[in-house]
């Protein structure tokens, strides 16, 4: 470490004092240590503080034009109900008269749960030649008690599975009751 002072004190004893060859190498170890410490700091802090976002477009509420209402087939319409404590139910078609008589079914979040269901329904419709905007239509309905994360999770599933048509709707009273 003390390389800078390697040549001191000598030069006595009658001989002509020659300028000694200086050791030019400065010990950079500490400097490199410091530099890497700072690099690590900046790398970690910058990558963590970049928030992403998800775009959400809601339909205009003031519009009362009936032309905009598109009739949707029961077999294409899937409703996802989000409740408190991470509960989740889904059904096809109408609530009072569900498609093929299968009422609201429990499911879970994530790749093993509702994602499989959505992909399954999409595959069924694809077999009949309905894809993209002709394909599955998902209505997302949430109770006020559900968390914001639950909603983001479902919106994320829409992005992952590639559902082209989805909308956030208000729950009916009957639906609220079963999600209690």
């Amino acid at each position, binding site marked *: 470490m003390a390389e800078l002072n390697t040549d001191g004190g000598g030069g006595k004893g009658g001989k002509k004092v020659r300028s000694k060859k200086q050791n030019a*190498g400065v*010990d*950079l*170890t500490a*400097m*490199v240590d410091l*530099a*890497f410490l*700072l*690099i690590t700091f*900046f*790398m970690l*802090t*910058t990558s963590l*503080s970049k*928030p*992403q*976002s*998800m*775009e*959400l*477009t*809601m*339909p*205009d*509420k*003031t519009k009362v034009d009936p032309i905009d209402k598109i009739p949707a087939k029961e077999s294409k319409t899937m409703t996802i109900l*989000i409740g408190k404590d991470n509960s989740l139910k889904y059904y096809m078609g109408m609530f009072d008269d569900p498609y093929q008589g299968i009422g609201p079914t429990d499911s879970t979040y*994530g*790749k093993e749960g509702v994602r499989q269901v959505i992909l399954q329904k999409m595959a069924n419709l694809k077999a009949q030649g309905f894809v993209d905007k002709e394909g599955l239509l998902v209505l997302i309905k*949430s*109770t*006020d*008690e*559900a*968390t*914001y*994360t*639950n*909603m*983001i*999770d479902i*919106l*994320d599933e829409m*992005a*992952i599975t590639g559902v082209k048509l989805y909308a956030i709707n208000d729950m009916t009273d009957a639906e609220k009751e079963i999600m209690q």
Partner: protein
Amino acid sequence: MAKMKKSSTRIDMTAMCDVSFLLLTFFVLTSTAKTPEVHPVDLPNSTKETKIPSSDIVTLTVDEDKVYFGLSGKDDKVDVLERMGKEYNIEFTKEEINKFTTMENFGVDIRELKQLLAKPVGELMKPENHTKGIPFQDSLNNQLSAWVKHSRESTWARKQDFVKVAIKGDAEEKFGTVNKVIQILQEQRQNRFYLVTGLRDSDF
């Protein structure tokens, strides 16, 4: 027998030092300083990677039934505050406006804003000064709606551009509160939002 040559144990660090400082400079210059907020929230995660625009954006932070309002640019803050002052009959001095522009976001009733701005700059962003949030639950005193309306009008009047709205909700926040904020915005026909999220991969 040949003598073992005594080799130097020292390595020349110069190149390493050069590289590390180059990297350091790069990170220092590219990093954006994280601006402090009056109420930091834990964001939910999503796989979407839409970038949030950095200008003409209103950021609404939602947590614990409270809303905090933030504007992006300095000029926007000045103009919107003047417009709000006119609506609520509050005259802000130059000094107060200057102090207002130093705040990234805020969560106070506009009628208490003058008291807040009387405090020294260092104390403006302290969370204890922003405990109530912007009033929005009461339809007769919906200041959130007023702030958003004036931001929209201000941006349109000065730049002929639409203001964007980012919603920063806490992961544990009830959807009901976020929904209420969305409803208030939709009443003004503000139908597009950026939901601010963290990043994750689809394996969850």
